C-alpha cells in the first residue's frame, strides 16, 4: 500500500495520531492532574483540609465504622439488574469481606466491603454474588463523609483518564483508552522513524520561522525529550489493565486459572471459601503491630497502606495487611496474612520473583505511590509535555492543509481545528468550570456531586459548540477565533475559582502559603499559573496578525 517503510509510518503517525489524539490529549491531561488527585480532593472538599493521617486503630475506630457500613445505593441498583428476584433490604445484609485503604497523601480513609446476597445471578457464569458498599471516613473520629460529595481529583479526574467515564457497552471507555494507549506507542515509534534529524534537532526550536516549522519543532521537541516517559506511561497503562484487555484467565484459560487458584489456596493457607463455622475476630491492632514489627525487622519499616479481611465472622477468616509504598518505585506490598480468629501469622509474602518484580516496578512507575514531591512535579511536567506534543500535532496538521483546503473548498481542516479547540482549551474550560461549580453550588444541595459533574460535561459541550461556530475562518485559511476566546475563558474561570476558594473557605493563598498547607496552595498556584499562560496566549493570538495570509485573501 505504501512505497516505503517511512511512508507507511508517516501515514500511520498522521492518521492514527490525529484520530486517537483527541482521546490521548484528554487521557494525558487528566492523567497529569491525577498526579495530584488527592490535593485536588482537598481543594474540592474543604472539610478534608487537614494533615494526612496514618491508618487508624481498627479495633477502636474502624470496627464500629464497618458495623454501620451498608451497601451503596448505586451498587444495589446495578446488582439488582444482574440477579433474579428482589434484593433483600440493605440493612439486613452481612459483610463478607472488608478493606481499608490509605496513602501518605490522604487525610481521609477509604473503606468498603462486600455483602453476601442470597439471589442467584441471571447469567450462570457471573460469580459475583455480592453487593458492594464503600465510604470515606475521617480517620481521627470514624465519621463518614456525606455520600454525595464528589472527590473531584480521585473520583472524577482520575477515572476520567482511564475510562472516560464511559461505562456503556460493557465499559467501552476502558477499551477506547486502551486502544489510544496502543496508538500512542505506535505514534512514538513511527514518529521516531519519520523524524529524520532526531539527534541533530534535539535542542531545536525556531520560534521566528513559519508556523508550520515552529509547530513541528515544538511537536518534535516535546515528543523526544520526554520519549521514555511517554512510552512507559502508555505501556504500563496497558499492562496495569491487562486483565481487562486480554481476559484469557476468565475465558479460554478459565479451567486452568481456577485449578491453579484452588492449588494456590492450599499452598498459601488462605481459604477460598468460608467454612460455615462462626468465629469472632481477634484484635486486628495486634496483627497490625506484628506486621509493622516484621517489616521493621526486614529493614522496611512502614505504615499500613491496605488492610483486607475475608470470610468475616468465619473460622476460615483471614486478615491481610499490606505496606504503603512510599520509599520506592516498586509496589511490592510486603503482604502478611493472619488467621482472623487467633491473630497468628498464616503467611508472609515471599520476595517477588523476577517476573513479578518487573511487573511491580512497572506498575509502581505508573501508579506512583512514592513520597517524592519533586518527582511528582516532574511527572506532571512530563504529562504536560505530552499534551503539548499532541496539541501541536493537531495545529501542525491544520496548518499544513488549510491553504489547500481553502483553495479546494474543503472543510476538513476546519473540523479538525474545531475538535482540537474542544479537546485542548475545551478540556481546560470544563476543568475550571467544575472547580468553580464546586465552590458555587449550595453546600446542602442533594446529589451535589452529580450536579458538579453535569456542569463539567455541559461546559465541555459548550466549548465544542463554540469551537465549531467560531472556526469558520479556517475555511479561508485563517486562524479560528475560538482559540483566543477560549484561552480568555480559561483564564477568567481559573482566577474565579481561586477567588471563590478564598471567599467560600477563607483559605486564601497568603494563608495556605504561610501555614504551609500545600495541597490547597498548590492547586490555587497552578490555577493562577494556568490563568497567566492562558491570558498571555490570548493576548498574543489577538495581537499577532498572521503573516502567512494567502496573497489573494
Amino acid at each position: 500500500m505504501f512505497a516505503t517503510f517511512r511512508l507507511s509510518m508517516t501515514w500511520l503517525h498522521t492518521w492514527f495520531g490525529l484520530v486517537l489524539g483527541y482521546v490521548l490529549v484528554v487521557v494525558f491531561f487528566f492523567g497529569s492532574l491525577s498526579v495530584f488527585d488527592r490535593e485536588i480532593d482537598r481543594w474540592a472538599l474543604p472539610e478534608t483540609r487537614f494533615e494526612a493521617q496514618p491508618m487508624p486503630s481498627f479495633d477502636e475506630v474502624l470496627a464500629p465504622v464497618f458495623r454501620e457500613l451498608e451497601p451503596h445505593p448505586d451498587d444495589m441498583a446495578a446488582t439488582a439488574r444482574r440477579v433474579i428476584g428482589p434484593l433483600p433490604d440493605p440493612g439486613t445484609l452481612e459483610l463478607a469481606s472488608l478493606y481499608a485503604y490509605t496513602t501518605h497523601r490522604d487525610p481521609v480513609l477509604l473503606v468498603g466491603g462486600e455483602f453476601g446476597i442470597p439471589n442467584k445471578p441471571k447469567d450462570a457464569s457471573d460469580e459475583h454474588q455480592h453487593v458492594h458498599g464503600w465510604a470515606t471516613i475521617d480517620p481521627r473520629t470514624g465519621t463518614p463523609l456525606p455520600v454525595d460529595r464528589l472527590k473531584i481529583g480521585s473520583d472524577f479526574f482520575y477515572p476520567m483518564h482511564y475510562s472516560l467515564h464511559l461505562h456503556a457497552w460493557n465499559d467501552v471507555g476502558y477499551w477506547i483508552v486502551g486502544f489510544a494507549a496502543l496508538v500512542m506507542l505506535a505514534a512514538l515509534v513511527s514518529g521516531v522513524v519519520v523524524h529524520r534529524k532526531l539527534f541533530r534537532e534535539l535542542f531545536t526550536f525556531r520560534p521566528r520561522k513559519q508556523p508550520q516549522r515552529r509547530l513541528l519543532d515544538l511537536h518534535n521537541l516535546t515528543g523526544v525529550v520526554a520519549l521514555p516517559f511517554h512510552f512507559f506511561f502508555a505501556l504500563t497503562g496497558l499492562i496495569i489493565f491487562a486483565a481487562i484487555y486480554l481476559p484469557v484467565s476468565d475465558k479460554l484459560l478459565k479451567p486452568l486459572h481456577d485449578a491453579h487458584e484452588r492449588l494456590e489456596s492450599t499452598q498459601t493457607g488462605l481459604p477460598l471459601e468460608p467454612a460455615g463455622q462462626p468465629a469472632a475476630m481477634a484484635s486486628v491492632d495486634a496483627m497490625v503491630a506484628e506486621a509493622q514489627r516484621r517489616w521493621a525487622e526486614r529493614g522496611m519499616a512502614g505504615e499500613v497502606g491496605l488492610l483486607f479481611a475475608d470470610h468475616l465472622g468465619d473460622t476460615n477468616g483471614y486478615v491481610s495487611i499490606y505496606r504503603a509504598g512510599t520509599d520506592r518505585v516498586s509496589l511490592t506490598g510486603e503482604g502478611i496474612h493472619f488467621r482472623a480468629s487467633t491473630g497468628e501469622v498464616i503467611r508472609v509474602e515471599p520476595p517477588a520473583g523476577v517476573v513479578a518484580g518487573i511487573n511491580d516496578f512497572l506498575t509502581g512507575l505508573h501508579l506512583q505511590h512514592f513520597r517524592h514531591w519533586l518527582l511528582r512535579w516532574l511527572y506532571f511536567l512530563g504529562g504536560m509535555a505530552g499534551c503539548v506534543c499532541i496539541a501541536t500535532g493537531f495545529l501542525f496538521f491544520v496548518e499544513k492543509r488549510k491553504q489547500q483546503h481553502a483553495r479546494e473548498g474543503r472543510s476538513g481542516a476546519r473540523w479538525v481545528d474545531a475538535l482540537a479547540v474542544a479537546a485542548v482549551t475545551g478540556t481546560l474550560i470544563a476543568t475550571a468550570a467544575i472547580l468553580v461549580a464546586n465552590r458555587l453550588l449550595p453546600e446542602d444541595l442533594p446529589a451535589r456531586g452529580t450536579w458538579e459533574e453535569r456542569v463539567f460535561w455541559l461546559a465541555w459541550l459548550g466549548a465544542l459548540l463554540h469551537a465549531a461556530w467560531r472556526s469558520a475562518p479556517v475555511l479561508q485559511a485563517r486562524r479560528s477565533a475560538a482559540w483566543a476566546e477560549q484561552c480568555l475563558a480559561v483564564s477568567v474561570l481559573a482566577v474565579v475559582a481561586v477567588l471563590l476558594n478564598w471567599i467560600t473557605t477563607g483559605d486564601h493563598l497568603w494563608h495556605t502559603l504561610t501555614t504551609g498547607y500545600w495541597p490547597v496552595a498548590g492547586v490555587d498556584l497552578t490555577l493562577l499559573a494556568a490563568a497567566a499562560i492562558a491570558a498571555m496566549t490570548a493576548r498574543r493570538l489577538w495581537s499577532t496578525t498572521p503573516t502567512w495570509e494567502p496573497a489573494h485573501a
Partner: protein
Amino acid sequence: MPDALFYVLVVVLVVLGLASFALAMERHWRQLRPGSPIARPTTLVLRAIGATALAASLALCLWLDHGTIASLVWVMALVPAALAVTFTFSWRPQWFAPLLWWTGTRP
C-alpha cells in the same frame, strides 16, 4: 530544606551537561561562533564535559535518594533541562557563551 538546594544543583548540572552536548553540534556551535566551524577536538571535549556533568548529576541523585527513585528523578529531570536548553538556544544563546570560555578564539 537543604535537600531542595541539592535538587537545584542536579538540574543545573543536567542543564550544563545537555548544553555542552548541544554546543558540540554544528548548528548550536554556529550560534555562538558564527565564523568558525567546530573543530573535532572541541567536539570531543564538549561531549566529555557534557558526559561528566550528566554523570555527576546522576551520582548526586543516587546520593539523595533510594536507587530506583533516584534514577527516575534523573531521567525525568532531563525533561525540563532539555526544554530549558532548547529555549535558551532559541532566544538567548549567548547565555551559554561562558561554557566556551576555554576555547579562546572569538568570531
